């Protein structure tokens, strides 16, 4: 009997969250993604000197973050999922930082 109650308690621990995102939130995210796409194109039409590339990267990163948080429901997911998501981008960062620590410094002269 005690065993059963423990099992039932355990069941409630894993109950699905069933968070249903309201329709307006999905439409708002879609609208933001569309605006971001237009902004990317418009920004590339202007000569912003060294800022063209960082701005394009920034807009793409914001768009990707919106997709991950709202379309992929990470904002309502478990902490373990957060760890994996953030971890994957940390590893991507390691890939880029270590590679460019090599390539971007090859022309540097020490002597």
């Amino acid at each position: 009997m005690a065993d059963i109650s423990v099992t039932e308690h355990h069941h409630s621990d894993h109950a699905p969250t069933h968070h249903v995102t309201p329709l307006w939130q999905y439409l708002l995210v879609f609208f933001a993604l569309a605006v971001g796409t237009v902004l990317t194109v418009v920004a590339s039409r202007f000569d912003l000197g060294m800022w063209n590339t960082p701005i394009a990267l920034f807009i793409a990163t914001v768009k990707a973050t919106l997709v991950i948080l709202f379309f992929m429901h990470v904002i309502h997911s478990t902490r373990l999922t957060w760890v994996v998501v953030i971890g994957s981008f940390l590893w991507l960062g390691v890939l880029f930082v270590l590679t460019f620590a090599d390539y971007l410094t090859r022309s540097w002269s020490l002597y």
Partner: protein
Amino acid sequence: MSDTTLHAHADEHPPHHPFLQHHFEDLGQQHEASTLGMWMFLTTEILFFGGVLCAYWIYRVMYPAAWAEAASLQNWQMGAINTIVLIISSLTMALAVRASQLGQRMGTVVMLVLTLLFGGIFLGVKGYEYSVHFHEGLFPGAQTFTWHENPALAPQVQLFMAFYFTMTGLHAIHMVIGAGLLLWFIRRAWRGDFGPEYYAPVEIMGLYWHFVDIVWIFLFPFLYLIHSAGGHHG
């Protein structure tokens, strides 16, 4: 003796959901495990595309002029249209998950069909672009490719095109796999497999589809919209 114990054992457990795997305690735990597992897979996908992107950036830093010239040879209008098409397909995919959460069988089917439709439009536009590139001889290894304005840049433009076909090709393969999965999911949704208790597969399908969308969100500015340092190529 053994018969009675079996009977008693069977009585302890209420009849469970037909899609609950025996190694999970309940659908909630199963849902969490599938989401986590899919994200583990997406981690490998992020690093897979990340490797190609990293190589692309090394050469972009080495040959900035050629990269800007080559990107200006792309049809950015087609790229922009495809970006919007893919974002719409992501919206319909998210709405398919929502419909399955709410137990709307037909809503799920319709949204999955729309997702497949917009995915198909994307691949159609991409195919048209590929045919134009081949017609113009704008692909790596093409003997006909010459760059009249600046012949010295021709080999580097070909290198850009090698990245272009690798990146968009890998992306398109992911789209084709996604389209195949969608066909299977439309059949399952039509059969009534999904509902408020069991929508994890639709959610997982969504994670895959949105990931492919994210890859394109980066590919579009990287391959179509490089502003040249000189400023003469808008």
